[in-house]
């Protein structure tokens, strides 16, 4: 066996060797941008230099054929430089405006939608799901593919009041993150415990400590050390499942999908906000999750119709109020929408402010 090589602890690479020369030259010296059309951005620097960006959607989980094809397009129609956004869109930067249209055509011809800029519904930030996660309640890439097929027009056009960010998460840990519309697994039954395995697989005190509502306690079951769950207390969050896989939380029928709206990471206008529950109980209906698509499209259509320019989802709802949101979208309002987590009274209406 060859001698093992110690790693080179180089960390995050310097981006300069990989950066478009015009961006490198004008680093920190940009003064203007515009949005000539959906999927295209124009930036101008102090020096007068300009750069056009063409943004396209990808499937994020890419095979080498796809990456080479995207590279071929960059070499033939672009300047050989790309970058990826936080939502896995690919951006081609070109220094010559004449390259923009042929580049868009090449991307479209190869099946990559050009869009995702400004007031569009951008690509969905998502997780790993059944493809690679060890605790997934559903898939990630499949949900995203199915939804983006439905939202294709909203990606390639820019007709929303403001930008719309979506995320999906295959468990309640919500690795997909906060979003204008977030689609998240919501378990509805306590974990099913395999008491034969707990003692050997799980570090019991840390599993007990992991429960947000102190519903787990050590117990002797059938003469074996195990854990038991106070099912009246249990909120079915699944936090015990990662440290203790014998506490199976995923259930083909009872792991449902919930939809949350109004998360906003930007500080623009209002302070950043967390998304809020609006719908739940949707079936985990692979491979295309049509029930989820219906609710998302209904929310988007209502927002598109009713939102004013520059209002993000939460700005719109803050203006019209939650009763109007439920009325306009036709979504049922239930007792589960009323927050009873610690500090939850801050989410109640402590005023006489009521719209009629």
């Amino acid at each position: 066996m060859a001698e093992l090589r110690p790693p080179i602890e180089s960390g995050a690479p310097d981006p300069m060797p990989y950066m478009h020369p015009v961006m490198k030259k004008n680093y920190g010296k940009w003064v203007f941008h515009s949005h000539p059309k959906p999927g295209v951005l124009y930036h101008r620097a102090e020096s007068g230099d300009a750069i056009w960006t063409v943004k396209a959607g990808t499937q994020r989980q890419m095979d080498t054929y796809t990456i080479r094809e995207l590279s071929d397009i960059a070499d033939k129609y672009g300047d050989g430089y790309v970058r990826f956004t936080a939502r896995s869109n690919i951006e081609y930067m070109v220094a010559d405006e004449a390259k923009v249209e042929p580049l868009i055509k090449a991307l479209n011809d190869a099946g990559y939608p050009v869009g995702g800029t400004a007031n569009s519904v951008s690509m969905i930030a998502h997780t790993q799901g059944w493809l690679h996660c060890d605790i997934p309640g559903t898939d990630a890439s499949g949900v995203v593919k199915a939804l983006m097929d439905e939202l294709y027009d909203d990606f390639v056009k820019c007709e929303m009041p403001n930008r719309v960010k979506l995320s999906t998460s295959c468990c309640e840990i919500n690795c997909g993150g906060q979003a204008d519309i977030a689609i998240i697994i919501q378990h509805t039954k306590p974990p099913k415990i395999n008491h034969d395995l707990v003692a050997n697989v799980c570090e019991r005190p840390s599993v007990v400590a992991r429960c947000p509502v102190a519903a787990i306690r050590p117990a002797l079951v059938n003469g074996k050390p195990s854990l038991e769950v106070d099912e009246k207390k249990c909120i079915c969050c699944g936090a015990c499942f990662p440290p203790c896989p014998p506490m199976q939380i995923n259930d083909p029928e009872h792991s449902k999908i919930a939809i949350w709206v109004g998360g906003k990471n930007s500080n623009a206008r209002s302070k950043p906000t967390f998304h809020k529950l609006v719908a739940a109980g949707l079936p985990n209906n692979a491979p295309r999750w049509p029930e989820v698509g219906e609710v998302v499209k209904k929310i988007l259509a209502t927002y598109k119709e009713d939102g004013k320019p520059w209002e993000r989802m939460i700005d719109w709802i803050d203006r019209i109020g939650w009763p109007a949101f439920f009325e306009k979208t036709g979504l049922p309002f239930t007792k589960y929408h009323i927050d009873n987590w610690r500090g939850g009274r801050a989410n109640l209406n402590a005023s006489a402010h009521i719209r009629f």
Partner: protein
Amino acid sequence: MAKKMYDTPMLDQLESGPWPSFVTGLKRLAKDNDMMVDLLGQLEASYKTKKGYWKGGTVGVFGYGGGVIPRFTELKDENEKPLYPDAAEFHTLRIQPPAGMHYDTKTLRWMCDVWEKHGSGLIAFHGQSGDIMFQGIKTENVQAAFDELNENGFDLGGAGPALRTSMSCVGAARCEMSCYDEARALRTVINNNLDDMHRPALPYKFKFKFSGCGNDCVNAIQRSDMATLGTWRDNMQVNEELIQAWVAKNGKGELVNQVINMCPTKALSLKKIGSESKADGVVAAKIDAEDCLEIDNHNCVRCMHCLNVIPGGLLPGKDKGVTILVGGKGVLKIGATMGTVVVPFMKLESDEDFEKLGELARNILDFFAENALEHERTGEMIDRIGLVNFLEGIGLEIDPNMISQPRSNPYVRMDGWDEEAEKWEERKSA
């Protein structure tokens, strides 16, 4: 040629429709790759039963304790033989991208070559923490794949209770809103703390993220334990010509509706020329022969809205720097928390400024390492010990910019009031 493909009627339904299909990509790889044939088999099984079949384990590279996500199949027959043996090991290498996620095509093609040689050929740009995820590799190939990537300038990212891979926005590379060199800040902070990334020994994960302005395109406030956001403290820059062009195109009414009325602190107003305020920090931009847009800079909270609406017409000021927030995190265990301000403003231009940022980051990491409980994030630790104790621990002064309002109940012991008030006076006169 690879072995025969399984029937995948569920996954096949994800090949139609206009959005690029990852299933088509997986099938392309499976044509000459047994691992992908079996991966498709296992994924189809998940689609049928609605269950995941991966478990973790321990796989790594020499010299590091983290950065590889091990995955072993749980789909086995009664003799413990994997049902999909060629994908029985399907690990991921997390690799840190260049800050800002820039690539030339030569590098992308090279990454494809490396991953076809050692792994499955499936790469995600990028994971939610910002890693390039090289997905699908057997244990025996992990070291060779890492060696080839590592010898060409790329390093493993973070996993487990460790410093995690970081993200910065496109920032100074292509955005006029950028208030500092985001890539440099990321590399200063991350690359000086790699030991905590490569040898996981923290109470839990720790994330840094870097956004060039309040638009926070990498979701730093919500998604990172320490968020660095660009800002400025002088007057915003005004380009009258571009503002006038915007008004000529959209009309004065829309300037009122879309800009002035949407300012969260009412720092903007429409004034007749000649009636502008002469107060300090107030700037007026002429929009036509009659009116001007008045900007009360001292009351502007740098939310970025008006700059977003009139790009180039309104720009960040020249006295730029950063605001630092601490304690953002996801749901586990107390619910999601936003970061809160611990440094309202610091300059970030000179070598010394960057050194100071690096020291602050190290200081916060050290405090977290020493004081957080097992599996506790920074935000939860602050919830438990209180912001004041956290600030004292890392040696930062309190500041009213850290709160949205003072406490509203009297249940606190305040017999140190006089000394505390004196401290405030001293700081103010310093």
